[in-house]
């Protein structure tokens, strides 16, 4: 339970990731161009280790032949069947209303208390408005994940037959932490 130090600042290079075990649950922490994201390492389709999938830019199109790369969006594609999830929201690209993977909020706390509400913090904050995201912060050079708020529900995780009926919400754990300024970000 509670807050977990998941990494040292600088340990996860830009474009990198780290998969950690938090209270018995596997969570992937990603570093994308100065932002941190945390995602449950479990694909809602057939349970693959989602966080080992490739990262892609968002890709949209209006008409045939239109491939619009959205570099402002990062998706992770499951290494099994390629289902895409928005790293920021955990929502399925194909069925955002119906399918989502639990995400965690990642924030970076500065080394010095005076930076706490400064612009550096704001830039790094990954506050997400949805009810299912949780903070990851970095404190004193450690990336910290907080599991205090929501326990993993075994039924949601585990029961075949619960899948694909109605909203699939792979609930996960809150993540909080802060990263020292002066790290890779």
């Amino acid at each position: 339970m509670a807050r977990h130090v998941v990494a040292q600042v600088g340990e996860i290079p830009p474009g990198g990731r780290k998969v950690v075990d938090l209270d018995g649950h596997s969570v992937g922490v990603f570093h994308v161009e100065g932002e941190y994201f945390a995602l449950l390492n479990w694909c809602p389709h057939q349970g693959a280790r989602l966080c080992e999938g490739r990262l892609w830019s968002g890709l949209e199109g209006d008409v045939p032949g239109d491939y619009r790369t959205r570099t402002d969006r990062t998706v992770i594609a499951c290494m099994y069947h390629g289902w895409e999830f928005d790293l920021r929201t955990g929502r399925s690209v194909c069925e955002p209303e119906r399918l989502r993977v639990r995400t965690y909020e990642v924030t970076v706390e500065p080394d010095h208390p005076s930076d706490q509400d400064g612009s550096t913090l704001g830039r790094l904050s990954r506050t997400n408005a949805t009810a299912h995201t949780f903070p990851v912060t970095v404190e004193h050079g450690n990336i910290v994940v907080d599991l205090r708020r929501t326990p993993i529900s075994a039924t949601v995780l585990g029961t075949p037959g619960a899948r694909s009926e109605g909203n699939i919400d792979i609930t996960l754990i809150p993540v909080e932490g802060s990263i020292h300024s002066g790290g890779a970000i």
Partner: protein
Amino acid sequence: MVATRQSPPQTASDASPSTVPLTFGASRSAASTRPALIDCDLHNELHGDVLALVPYLSDRWKRHLETFGGRSPAGGFYPRFMDHREDARPPSGRRAGSEVAFTRSQYLDPFRVAYGILIPLSPAASQQNHEFGAALAKACNDWQVAEWLDPEPRLRASIVVPIEAPDLAVAEIRRRASDPRFVQVQFTGRPQEPMGRRKYWPIYEACQEYGLKVISHAFGSYGQPITGAGWPSFYLEDHVGPAQAMQANIISLVAEGVFDRFPDLKVISVENGAGWLPSLMWRLDASWSLLREEVPHLQMAPSEYVRRHIWTTTQPMEEPHQPHQFDEFIEQLGSLADHILFASDYPHWDADQPDEAFPIRLAPELEHKIYYGNAAALYGLGETQ
């Protein structure tokens, strides 16, 4: 599975597998508690494609390979979206599915696979030079014996044959028939003629003689389009196509009277899903009720032939948006539910995870049949575990 899987130690900065959840649905610990299964579509891959077969080729065909290489119909191939499952590549870095030891430790053991039916996707069947195709088929079967069947007693295999040269195919079938580990003869997803056509009857005759099943595995043979309306543009279309191709071949096998001539023949559709089976049977019977005079050799309604002679594997299992429709599908199958065989397609990207392959929880009796009983009965494999 939880008990046997070895998790690599977690490192600080890469994405190596973490301890929990374990791979591939194992968070449910289902594999460790459920009964063993029979996997009817397990791929043994040729590392380096045809080069893996060089040690098994005669000097004459080695020379041919070095001089000319293989020739298959050009222009019919769609690059797959992704390579084989990334986590299925052995530590040696060789192709996923190309090492029996790794298949054993990553898949057979943790997923409690009692038997796995190998289906190699070799270049033999599509060779335009039939003699070379026959040589590759023989080499591929020798490779299966030496590198898969001998080291791993849980494996059974498909006989690779040059299907477009039935005389050569029959010779290869006879060569393997005495080895009980070869359980079936492998067709590609779209032979040059519909599977029921007279051309292929010698193959079926040999299969019936030796009690071998016939399988048609999705894809393969690229000499004609995947559709009855020409070449589509995108791999997505190519990947929806096999279900249509298989239906055409089932229609042909039934209508052309193959099962009247070879009443013991059993045909298995592999990697085409199964959701299309009920409507195909309804349509067959409806058309036949009016056109039966054209096919007086048929002794019963076409759906009856399907029920007696056709088996299908599960993957890629249809996933209705409304799960109760999967129950309707099962109900519509009726007796044909005894002919549904679990298959994973390991280690391909589109493989179904054994413990997550269905959109609903199957009733226990049905679950046992699909995962084990149906295949055990079909292949004469014992009840175990």
